C-alpha cells in the first residue's frame, strides 16, 4: 500500500464563543476528533448535512482555518502549526475549489490573471506562465480566446472550469473541492464531475470531495466518510458504505435520497428520521445521533461510541454501539 499523502489525526475546531456582559456563550465545537488518510490519486468523499462540519474540515486541510486540536500531516510532515513562510511552498501542492464559482473569482481580473495568480505567487517566469495558462485553459475544456474575458462573461459551469484551472495551475497533489457542483444545473454537474474525473486520471491528483449530494459523492469517490455533528460516524470504501451501511444515520441518509425512478421509489423501504439535525452549539450527550436514532438504547445517551471496524474482513469503520453490519 502506498504511503498516505494526507494524514488527519484527531482534528478539532472549536469556534470561540462571545463573552458578553450578561451572558457567556460557550464555544461551538464544529469539528471534533476527525481522523482519516488520503492516498495519492484517490478521491475521499466527505458527506453530511448542513452544520456537520464538512466544510470546516476541508478548510483546515488547506490551512484556511487553523485547527484548535489535532494535526494535519502532508507527506508525513505536520503542517498544522507551521508559519506562512514555510506554508507557501506547500500551497502549490494543496489547492482548493469552491462552491460558488463567481464569488471565488475576482470580477475585475481577466481569466488570464486569475489562472496565472498561483503561478506568479510561486515565482514562475512570465514566459513559462503564459504557455502554462494556455495549456491549463485547454485542459479544462475552454479555449485560449477565453483568457481575455472577465468572469461575468461566463456561465456557471464555465466559471467553475476556470476555478478548476486555477486550482490545478501549480500541479497540486491534493485538491479540496467544497461542494464544487451544487450551485450548477443538473445537466452541467455531470460535465464538471466528468472533468474532475478525467483530470484525476491524467494528472494523478487526489481529491477530498465535500458535498451533501450522496449520489454525486458515490459517483466520484473511492472512499467515503459520513459526518454528523462534527464527527465522522462512518468511513470506508464507497461500496461498503453505500451498499451495506453500518451506521443507522448513514442508512437513514441513503434511504432519504429520492431515486429518479417512480417504481423503485414506491417499493423502497424508507427510514424517515424525526426532527432536524441538532445544533453543534448544544450537542446531545453520548452519541450525538441518539435523539433521532431508531435504535437508540440507554448506553447511547451516556456514552459516545468510538469509530471502530464493525464487520470482519473490511476496513470500514463506524461509530455506533449497535451497528447494522
Amino acid at each position: 500500500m502506498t504511503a498516505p499523502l494526507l494524514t488527519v489525526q484527531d482534528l478539532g475546531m472549536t469556534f470561540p464563543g462571545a463573552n458578553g456582559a450578561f451572558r457567556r456563550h460557550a464555544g461551538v465545537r464544529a469539528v471534533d476528533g476527525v481522523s482519516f488518510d488520503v492516498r495519492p490519486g484517490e478521491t475521499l468523499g466527505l458527506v453530511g448535512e448542513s452544520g456537520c462540519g464538512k466544510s470546516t474540515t476541508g478548510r483546515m486541510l488547506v490551512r484556511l482555518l487553523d485547527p484548535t486540536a489535532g494535526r494535519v500531516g502532508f507527506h508525513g510532515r505536520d503542517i498544522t502549526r507551521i508559519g506562512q513562510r514555510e506554508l507557501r511552498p506547500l500551497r502549490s501542492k494543496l489547492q482548493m475549489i469552491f462552491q460558488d464559482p463567481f464569488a471565488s473569482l475576482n470580477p475585475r481580473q481577466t481569466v488570464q490573471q486569475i489562472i496565472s495568480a498561483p503561478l506568479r505567487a510561486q515565482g514562475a517566469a512570465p514566459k513559462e506562465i503564459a504557455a502554462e495558462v494556455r495549456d491549463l485553459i485547454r485542459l479544462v475544456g475552454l479555449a485560449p480566446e477565453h483568457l481575455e474575458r472577465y468572469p461575468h462573461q461566463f456561465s456557471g459551469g464555465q466559471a467553475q472550469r476556470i476555478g478548476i484551472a486555477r486550482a490545478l495551475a501549480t500541479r497540486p497533489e491534493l485538491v479540496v473541492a467544497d461542494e464544487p457542483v451544487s450551485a450548477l444545473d443538473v445537466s452541467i454537474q455531470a460535465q464538471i464531475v466528468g472533468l474532475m474525473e478525467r483530470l484525476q486520471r491524467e494528472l494523478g491528483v487526489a481529491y477530498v470531495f465535500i458535498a451533501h449530494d450522496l449520489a454525486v459523492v458515490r459517483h466520484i469517490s473511492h472512499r467515503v466518510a459520513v459526518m454528523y455533528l462534527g464527527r465522522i460516524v462512518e468511513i470506508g470504501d464507497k461500496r461498503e458504505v453505500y451498499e451495506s451501511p453500518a451506521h443507522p444515520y448513514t442508512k437513514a441518509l441513503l434511504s432519504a435520497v429520492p431515486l429518479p425512478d417512480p417504481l423503485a421509489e414506491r417499493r423502497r423501504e424508507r427510514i424517515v428520521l424525526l426532527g432536524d439535525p441538532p445544533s453543534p452549539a448544544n450537542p446531545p450527550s453520548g452519541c450525538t445521533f441518539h435523539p433521532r436514532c431508531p435504535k437508540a438504547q440507554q448506553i447511547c445517551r451516556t456514552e459516545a461510541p468510538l469509530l471502530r471496524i464493525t464487520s470482519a474482513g473490511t476496513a470500514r469503520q463506524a461509530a455506533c454501539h449497535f451497528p447494522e453490519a
Partner: protein
Amino acid sequence: MTLLEVKDLAVQFDTAEGVVRAVRGVDFTVEAGRTLGIVGESGSGKSVTSLAVMGLHRGAEVTGSVRFQGTELIGAPEETVRQLRGRRMAMVFQDALTSLHPYFTIGDQIAEAHQTHFGTGRKAALARAVEVLGDVGIPEPARRAGEYPHQFSGGMRQRAMIALALSCEPDLIIADEPTTALDVTVQAQVLELLMKIQQDRGLGIIMITHDLGVIARVADEVLVMYGGSAAEQAPAETLFSTPRHPYTRGLLDSLPRLDAADGDPLLAIPGSPPSLLAPPAGCAFHPRCGLYAAAPEAVRAACTGERPPLRLVAEDHRTACLLDSPSEGRITHQEVTA
C-alpha cells in the same frame, strides 16, 4: 375532477436588455388529488409558470388561458384573483425565511390569512392557526404559534409555510422548490407530509423542482420544461421508463444515481441552458442535442426552423421533438457550434 386547466400560457417581460420570453405556450391540467411535477433547470420557465397561474406576475405580459375551477383568471379583475389566491389555491415557496414576515409571530401570520378570507374573529383565527400547525406535525403548536420565524429551524419553518398554505383549506397547492433548501433527511419529512395531506384532503398539487428524484417520489404527471416551453409531458412512470425527448433522456443519463452500478459513466449534456433574451431559433435544445448533431443536413433544417410542437407519441405521452424515436439506449450529446 379538473381543478386547473392551463392553455397556451405565455409570459414575457420587458427588460433593459430586451424582451424576455420566459414562458412560450404551455398547456397542462391538474386534477384533484393528483400531483403535477414541473421539472426544469434555471431559466426553463417553471417558476414563472406558477407565478402566472397565481396571478403574481408583476409587470409581465401574460397571455393564454388559466381556468381554475371553471373561472378564467387571465384578464379577470384583480379582486377575483385575490379572492381565490390563498383561499382556493395557495403557494409554498422555497425560502421560508424570506417568505414569512420576521416581525410577526407564526401564529399571527397564519391567523391573518384566515381572517382575511373568512372574516373570522382574531381569537378563532388564532385557534385555527394552532390547529393547522398541529396538523403539519409541529410539536407544542400552541406555544410555537407565539414564536417568530427565526426561532424555527429550517424544516419547521417549511412546515409552518405549509400550515399557512393549508389554513384556508385550499383545493390546489403550488409548491415551488419547497425542499431545495432543506437537508435530505428533512426533505424526506416534508415530502411525506405533503403526500399525507394530499391523501387526507384530496388536494391537487403542482410540485416545481429541478430534482428528478423528488419528481419521481411525488408526481403523478410530469411536465419537463426547457427554454420556456414544454419539452415532454407524460405520466411519471412513463416518463422515467421510456423518456422520448433527447433533453429528458440526456438529463436522466447525466444524473449520478445512488442505485447505479459503480463505474457507470455520466453522459453529460454539453453547453448550457439557453438565454431567454436570445433563444436559439427553432427547437431551443438543438445546439446541445445529440440527435440533431447526428441528423442529415436536410432534417436539421426543420429543427432550426419552427419551434417543434408537442405531439402525441403514446397514450398521454407528448414530446416536442421532430427527431425522436422510441429507441433504446443512451444518446451521446455533442455541442454543435454554429
